[in-house]
């Protein structure tokens, strides 16, 4: 057997490598840096937007809501959604809403619901011919749900979504990626506004301000090939998003009223239902 120092020394080096002082800074904080120069209009215009970082996950949205109280996540469950699908565009949109459902189940810490949704996600992924790559994720989701590993589930859901998008890209179905993101965002917005309709909270209402995000998603929809862009459900989604964009585009110092939240909830709920039905 080799002497202990042979593995102990590299281990100490490894620990130093994976635990830099950033960990302490994250917790305790370091002095704020002096502000940089403002970005020019040209720099703002040149800024890159990428789906996997520019679009927040529903889990990220929900995490912010958790801090404003104790949301009744179970109240936002919906009956099992049909996963038949009339065409690939509708299935991609629906897949996005289902993944958002997964995050809701994680927030509610309902293992059975997570497993049910995970199964539906896999079934729908299979219809989109991306099941092979996400099959392993499905197994992980089931295992984490059984173990009650909620933090890991959050990460696994995002990884699943990215795996689906990657598979769509490999299958030359890049255009459907946008629809998965759009579906997830619409369902996430329905859930957050649903919680607010149940129990209004100004702090949570402020989270609804997302003008750039809706603008980004609409821009991506406009770039879709004509065949998909003119699909009945995509036309519907794009049209409704225009209305929704105005509801989430308010100044940073404005707090949406209960009535404004209700209007947004009705709009997002209607759209989620239409996506689910494929009409």
């Amino acid at each position, binding site marked *: 057997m080799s002497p202990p120092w042979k593995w102990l020394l590299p281990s100490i080096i490894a620990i130093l490598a*994976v*635990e830099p002082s950033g960990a302490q800074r994250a917790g305790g904080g370091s002095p*704020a840096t002096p502000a940089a120069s*403002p970005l020019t209009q040209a*720099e703002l215009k040149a800024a*890159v937007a990428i789906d*996997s970082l520019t679009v927040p996950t529903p889990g990220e949205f929900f995490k912010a809501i958790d801090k404003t109280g104790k949301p009744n996540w179970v109240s936002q469950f919906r009956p099992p959604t049909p996963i038949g699908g009339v065409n690939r565009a509708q299935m991609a949109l629906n897949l996005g809403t289902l993944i958002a459902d997964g995050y809701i189940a994680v927030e509610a810490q309902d293992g059975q619901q997570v497993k049910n949704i995970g199964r539906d996600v896999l079934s729908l992924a299979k219809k989109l011919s991306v099941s092979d790559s996400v099959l392993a994720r499905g197994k992980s989701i089931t295992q984490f749900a059984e173990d009650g590993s909620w933090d890991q589930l*959050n990460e696994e859901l995002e990884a699943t979504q990215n795996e689906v998008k990657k598979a769509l890209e490999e299958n030359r179905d890049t255009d459907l990626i946008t629809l998965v993101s759009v579906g997830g965002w619409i369902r996430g917005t329905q859930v957050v506004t649903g919680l607010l309709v149940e129990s209004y909270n100004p702090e949570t209402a402020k989270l609804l301000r997302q003008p750039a995000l809706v603008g980004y998603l609409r821009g991506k929809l406009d770039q879709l090939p004509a065949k998909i862009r003119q699909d009945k459900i995509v036309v519907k989604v794009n049209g409704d998003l225009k209305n929704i964009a105005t509801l989430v585009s308010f100044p940073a110092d404005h707090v949406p009223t209960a009535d404004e939240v209700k209007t947004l909830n009705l709009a997002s709920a209607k759209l989620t239902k239409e996506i689910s039905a494929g009409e």
Partner: protein
Amino acid sequence: MKRFLISLFHLLSFPALRLVLGVVVVVFSGAAALFGADTDEQTKAHSEVLDLAGAFQNDGFKLRDGTWYTQVSQGHPQTLQVNLYSGNAYWFSVADADNSTGLTLSVFDDHGNPVEVQSYQKDNKAAAGFSPDASGLYYVEVSSSAQAATTFCLIYSYK
């Protein structure tokens, strides 16, 4: 694999086990970084930035699965749009593939005005911590003081 190892790392509190796992994380991070990276430089930058972000994960931050690879050099900063939520805390982490020094991260609001961040910088890595007061669009800028272009990988975590 990387995600699994870091989860274990987070759960275990025994110093000896953490030491051993530290080695495993470092050994396997290269393999894990293969996912999503197209070039050797990207793989290396990804591996480096995951080492940094692992520290934030230990502090309860959740790592986004997405990555942003591109090249940066002195006078040619790169900027990414992100949509953040008030109430959440964020750490943006970046590392380059060439062990160049001088990477810095800055965050700007939707009008392009700089916001104050907590900064970390060491060797070829940098991080910026930020808790937005208002939800919405922000810009994250990566700058370099190196003359030669270097490939970097940016990721972010939140809690």
